């Protein structure tokens, strides 16, 4: 699924500052594959309208009576020249497409009905017909990429945009929805919608007087216009949408907030310039505010957005910190939902990858105790992020900060995790250990650190890793043991013959 942001993919901008930073970043960047089931708590990209209570247009009452037609009858009906027959057939079609189970989307595409439905969109004399056609097209566009494509190929986009100016609000709303489904398909169709100039029309619809359901639809469609990368939506489109999005961010309705936050999360899931565009609208304090929401659907995307922001430049990260990010993060690290813990830990790991001034802030906001707790008791996927945090923290820290880290109790759980069945995590931990030991060596603190590691059962675990099948791991473990835990005695060293001997002849 191209549009679901796999967390691993988002991690691609991870700022690991180890010795071979470029290599690590590379490795984390190239993974876009998932073995896992797709995430459930993400935003939907296409929605079918299955609400059976058809709102009645204000004027022009059609003939009453439920019409239930077969597909053949519908085909015949829509091709009729009688608007009433057309309406009845279209309504029947819409109902068929709105049934809860197995709507025959494909049969409609194959029957070639779409062009006719698109034509109906233009029949401004018959708003009921426009409405039913827009609805039917909405539902067809909610299907597979091929089905959405069929709607676009039939030329639906322009008439749908026309309908955004319809005097009939229900028609207008349905058009918004249909465009949302088209834009949600992927970057290509999204950009066709954008280049057809849909955005200004959409934005003029936003006002405080329209019904909440309508505003929700608009917000959702906007979020789909922000969604997807490769390529991202053009900067001009983003520039147009941002003021309205920051207006919507102050709304009180949780669905509107949720979709607005998702929109912002898509916009910040990119290069620093993209992040900068969002940050400059001044939304960060409000986003931090929303991170304390009790609604998961608001919390998740606002946290995601802030998490994206701190993948940016040091300055952008500083703005996030100044907006109060660090005062809300600790409680999210303790959130009952592990997916939230994980996102929060991921966010933390990127702040830890910053300059030591940022690391100092992490310490000041008492971020280490909850971090240690996650390392100790978190679920594995959370522990993994916590390990990255420690790695980034350690490699970017000043000596004093490293001291604070070691004394926060991080070593115990870290060493414990050496037996976890995940090779990458194990290697990162070994790297961190080796780095800390080297620093301790320079400060003359190595002996006490080695004793601490031994006390915590670390030597056994590191020794066991010397036999690991992964060569990088066994080598890293071997190096640590040889370099730091060789002979126990302080005063006894054995003669080690030197390997190199490139001697000249002795002079007589």
């Amino acid at each position: 699924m191209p549009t679901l942001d796999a967390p691993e993919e988002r991690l691609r901008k991870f700022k690991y500052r180890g010795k071979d930073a470029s290599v690590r970043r590379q490795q984390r960047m190239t993974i876009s594959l998932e073995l896992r089931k797709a995430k459930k708590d993400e935003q939907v990209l296409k929605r079918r309208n299955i609400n059976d209570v058809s709102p009645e247009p204000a004027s022009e009452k059609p003939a009453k009576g439920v019409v239930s037609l077969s597909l053949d009858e519908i085909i015949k009906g829509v091709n009729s020249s009688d608007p009433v027959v057309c309406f009845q057939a279209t309504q029947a079609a819409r109902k068929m497409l709105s049934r809860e189970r197995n709507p025959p989307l494909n049969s409609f595409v194959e029957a070639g009905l779409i062009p006719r439905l698109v034509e109906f969109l233009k029949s401004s004399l018959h708003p009921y017909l426009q409405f039913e056609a827009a609805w039917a097209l909405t539902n067809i566009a909610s299907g597979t990429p091929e089905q959405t494509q069929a709607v676009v190929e039939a030329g639906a986009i322009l008439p749908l945009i026309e309908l955004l100016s319809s005097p009939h609000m229900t028609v207008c709303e349905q058009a918004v929805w249909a465009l949302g489904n088209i834009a949600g398909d992927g970057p290509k169709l999204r950009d066709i919608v954008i280049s057809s100039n849909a955005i200004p029309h959409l934005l003029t619809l936003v006002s405080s007087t329209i019904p909440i359901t309508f505003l929700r639809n608009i917000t959702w469609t906007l979020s789909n216009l922000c969604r997807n990368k490769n390529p991202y939506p053009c900067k001009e489109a983003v520039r147009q949408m941002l003021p309205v999005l920051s207006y919507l961010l102050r709304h009180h309705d949780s669905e509107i907030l949720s979709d607005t936050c998702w929109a912002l999360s898509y916009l910040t899931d990119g290069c620093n310039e993209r992040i900068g565009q969002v940050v400059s609208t001044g939304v960060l304090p409000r986003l931090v505010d929303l991170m304390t929401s009790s609604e998961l659907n608001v919390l998740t995307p606002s946290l995601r957005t802030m998490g994206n922001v701190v993948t940016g430049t040091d300055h952008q990260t500083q703005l996030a910190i100044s907006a109060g990010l660090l005062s809300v993060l600790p409680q999210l690290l303790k959130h009952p939902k592990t997916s939230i813990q994980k996102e929060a830990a991921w966010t933390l790991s990127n702040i830890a990858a910053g300059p030591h001034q940022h690391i100092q802030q992490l310490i000041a906001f008492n971020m280490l105790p909850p971090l240690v707790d996650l390392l100790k008791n978190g679920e594995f996927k959370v522990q993994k992020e916590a390990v990255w945090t420690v790695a980034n923290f350690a490699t970017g820290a000043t000596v004093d900060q490293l001291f604070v880290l070691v004394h926060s109790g991080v070593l115990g759980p870290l060493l414990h995790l050496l037996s976890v069945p995940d090779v990458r995590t194990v290697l990162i931990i070994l790297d961190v250990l080796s780095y800390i030991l080297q620093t301790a060596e320079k400060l003359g603190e190595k002996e006490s650190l080695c004793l601490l590691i031994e006390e915590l059962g670390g030597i056994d675990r590191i020794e066991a890793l010397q036999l690991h099948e992964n060569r990088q791991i066994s080598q890293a473990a071997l190096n640590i043991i040889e370099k730091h835990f060789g002979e126990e005695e302080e005063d006894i060293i054995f003669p080690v013959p030197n390997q190199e001997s490139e001697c000249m002849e002795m002079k007589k």
Partner: protein
Amino acid sequence: MELSDANLQTLTEYLKKTLDPDPAIRRPAEKFLESVEGNQNYPLLLLTLLEKSQDNVIKVCASVTFKNYIKRNWRIVEDEPNKICEADRVAIKANIVHLMLSSPEQIQKQLSDAISIIGREDFPQKWPDLLTEMVNRFQSGDFHVINGVLRTAHSLFKRYRHEFKSNELWTEIKLVLDAFALPLTNLFKATIELCSTHANDASALRVLFSSLILISKLFYSLNFQDLPEFFEDNMETWMNHFHTLLTLDNKLLQTDDEEEAGLLELLKSQICDNAALYAQKYDEEFQRYLPRFVTAIWNLLVTTGQEVKYDLLVSNAIQFLASVCERPHYKNLFEDQNTLTSICEKVIVPNMEFRAADEEAFEDNSEEYIRRDLEGSDIDTRRRAACDLVRGLCKFFEGPVTGIFSGYVNSMLQEYAKNPSVNWKHKDAAIYLVTSLASKAQTQKHGITQANELVNLTEFFVNHILPDLKSANVNEFPVLKADGIKYIMIFRNQVPKEHLLVSVPLLINHLQAESIVVHTYAAHALERLFTMRGPNNATLFTAAEIAPFVEILLTNLFKALTLPGSSENEYIMKAIMRSFSLLQEAIIPYIPTLITQLTQKLLAVSKNPSKPHFNHYMFEAICLSIRITCKANPAAVVNFEEALFLVFTEILQNDVQEFIPYVFQVMSLLLETHKNDIPSSYMALFPHLLQPVLWERTGNIPALVRLLQAFLERGSSTIASAAADRIPGLLGVFQKLIASKANDHQGFYLLNSIIEHMPPESVDQYRKQIFLLLFQRLQNSKTTKFIKSFLVFINLYCIKYGALALQEIFDGIQPKMFGMVLEKIIIPEIQKVSGNVEKKICAVGITKLLTECPPMMDTEYTKLWTPLLQSLIGLFELPEDDTIPDEEHFIDIEDTPGYQTAFSQLAFAGKKEHDPVGQMVNNPKIHLAQSLHKLSTACPGRVPSMVSTSLNAEALQYLQGYLQAASVTLL
């Protein structure tokens, strides 16, 4: 090579010859095969033979040869020719799966290995139909074939367990999952069904269980990287079956073998691993299955016997429980008092018992026993797993667990008390239980460092440990004696000193025990006690406190070396060394006997040195004897020489390589003890030390350099007068060392000693040559380590011969050379010098250059004066520059050797850091200020102007500080 009968015949003959025990026949045959293996069709001939040969031996031989051929040649290395032609590759891949599956097991294994080697290179891109081919065989219903496929699949997929996530890897896994996961699941279900239809057919069951084991292993590999969507959707199926299999037993599958794990055990072990993988990594999804697995695994543990064949299963199963019980959200599964009691009683206690196998090891394989018990190489044992479970449970339930175990400990001790000779194992278990319960953290150096406060360790010591050790018979219940001694050893930081002191004579007494474990533990415990530190970092026990036992201690230690099995016991020798070190002068009265015993031991082991630790401690003990005695009475050195030189000569003559570095170190120590000139006995040795052959062995170099330095320090005038003809040889050693990146610092040690100690006139004629050699090396391979040593050397030279002499020698080699050295080496690199003495030498040397070298004041070198001063102030004030250029990183760690300090050496033969400028200059900063002042009085006005015009502000400020501190001003 044609695929002809003739060729098959030839190949058969050569293969046959490769099996010949006679190397004269075998070797040429092997050579021949290697020489023809590059030909097309060679591998196909081998495949034909292994399929069709009439001779079974040839079949197997061909299959092995084929596998090795694939191993050597299949991989296509970039920039190297492809060693197998494309047609052969295609033919091999087209036939090998079928061939493997239709071959008998012995050959199947070889071909399966070959397939996985090929697969590693070609799968999936270049072998797209392999998966389909394998999956299709699942339908064959022939489990011989199916197991072959499964085995191959396992060897292909097991790398998913240890490789890093990457796009390629995950693309492959996705491909495998799409093609393989569903058929594997169906096969799993079908196999389980067949197991119940064939529940009474032992041979069918064995085949089916082999399949189940392989399927379970494949499950582990496929689920390792992440939880695949397919397995999440089918978790129910897999976990239900795994659960059922865990609880399954079938008499027909039980084996009589006590040692070797049977199919049932292997399967259940793997299932424990699978469950542990899910519990650790996919907790959220696995949560609802986990309680059932906990129960099943716990029941499994309760019903599994003590035999060795169950060890892996039991320790896997316990480790599973240990990892689950410390997770906060599963704590409820364990918190019920009955559950806890039952885990303690039925899982932990039984697995802590001293088993027949342990008893056997204690008696017959004590070295292995000690290593496991003392040094913790017991990772996979039941006892260790049980200990881990105790620790895991203590995370949330320390109180209740301690309570439950206290009850057990008491009842086991009561059992023991009723009839010690029958029930001694109960006490062993009780002690083990107390130990594992009480120890929360432990190090080799300090024993237990964090203890469970709910356990009263001292009380247990007084009531249950001391009485055993006090019993008159040291040979009774050896296991309990060993337990008791170990208890002292590991709780030495918890048991109060007065109790430890009480145990010292008891431990000394147990040095006489016949059991190797017991007297070894006694020696080790004494050694550990003597190493303990009290307040002020002094040893916890003073020599005075141990003095009453000196005689018996030394006697028993040496007697212990005569007990069977302990003649080269490193623990005892280490205890001897440690006792000497603690007791110091108190051992002097015994030295004559001690040194005799040590030299006898030395003589004996030098016939065949086999225990490096033992030997090392023995030499340390010899050094200690010398030091302690000669400190009080330097004249006694002669006695040592008398006692030792005979053995030393023998070692040198017989070229006992392991001991030669030690001998040189001991000789250095002896030589340094002489206050006056070198005795003639040493001088006789001097020429021999310069023999090239000795220097060929890199292990000798540090010790030899050390010894030559001792000669130079003590006897430079003797050498100059009586052995002047040896000076070129000495410099030859320097030349040889300086040419090696690894040993150049040793060469500088020697050179520095020559410069410092030899009378100038005796080295005059060689000086220029020395500098030329150094420049040569600088040009050929400049390393940071070399530069650092070079800087120290030229500054020492400057101190010894004067600044002008240094300038002259450089400029004598080549005009303006001195300026180049200043500009390109001294000024930019001086910040890299490390070590206090080294820095001081450089500071004093540079001060001389600045203030006692006229050309620095009035030639073109003058422009370098201020930069040189600036770099000297940098040396004083800036942090050391420890960066190493990238291209040098491969050079070994030994890149910052001290001026005179540690090479790999005997600790007690070491000498103090030597400071050649110690007497001359105390504080180099003050020295600089004073020297500058002196210079400025000689040429008033110049120094202040040079300083103020181009020294940077910060440096100037420091300099003013020095001048102030020295109370001088610049004129």
